[in-house]
């Protein structure tokens, strides 16, 4: 199973990252998967209270974050028997429209690819030590106490 996890402290472009990942797998002689399921999450332009959002601040627990992401990914990928897994996550200050998270799963069948992509996204949302603080355009800020609903 091919696994790659990166934390980005500056803006990343999902399509560029995916292209590099594709090239990397090709370089390892790994054939393209029959099924690929992907998810990209971006920052909204409104805060939870409906006011305009200036930026999202993403704090994390250095060391534990990387370990947790790897454990969650390995468990999920093994459970579904998929062949490749790319996870990219932002940290630091992220502005509306920028990508926060990218999950890309390659598998031999669409079912495992889709289920793994979905489950890993939920797992990292709830079990990787990230915290979001909303910075509103009026200068006020608030830590979020959970995730947006499914």
């Amino acid at each position: 199973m091919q696994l790659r996890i990166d934390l980005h402290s500056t803006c990343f472009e999902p399509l560029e990252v995916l292209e590099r990942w594709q090239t990397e797998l090709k370089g390892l002689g790994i054939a393209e998967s029959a099924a690929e399921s992907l998810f990209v999450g971006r920052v909204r332009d409104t805060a939870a209270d409906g006011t305009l959002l200036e930026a999202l601040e993403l704090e994390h627990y250095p060391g534990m974050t990387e370990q947790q992401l790897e454990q969650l990914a390995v468990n999920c990928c093994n459970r579904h028997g998929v062949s490749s897994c790319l996870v990219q996550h932002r940290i630091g200050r992220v502005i509306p429209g920028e990508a926060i998270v990218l999950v890309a799963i390659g598998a031999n069948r669409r079912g495992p690819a889709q289920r793994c992509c979905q489950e890993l996204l939920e797992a990292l949302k709830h079990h990787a030590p990230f915290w979001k603080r909303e910075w509103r355009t009026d200068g006020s800020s608030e830590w979020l106490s959970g995730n947006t609903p499914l």
Partner: protein
Amino acid sequence: MAGLSAGKIRILLFAGLREQAGWAEQQWPAAPQPDSVLTPRQLWLKLHLPGALDQQVRVAINQQFADADTPLQPGDELAFLPPISGG
């Protein structure tokens, strides 16, 4: 983060919990007698930290999620984690 003195436990707070408590990191002596026990839950109370342990705040020992009643060892890194919101 700063080096850890012998026989101590490093305690870390994050995000909203860090701001409410007013500190990010401190060290605490591990259990003094060899047969006594110190747990995250005991430290949570001793430190008068805000919020509800278990319901809202999770515990990590040495960067792994752990039960709040796990006995702590000298040199352990203990973290109290407010509600996670990643992805």
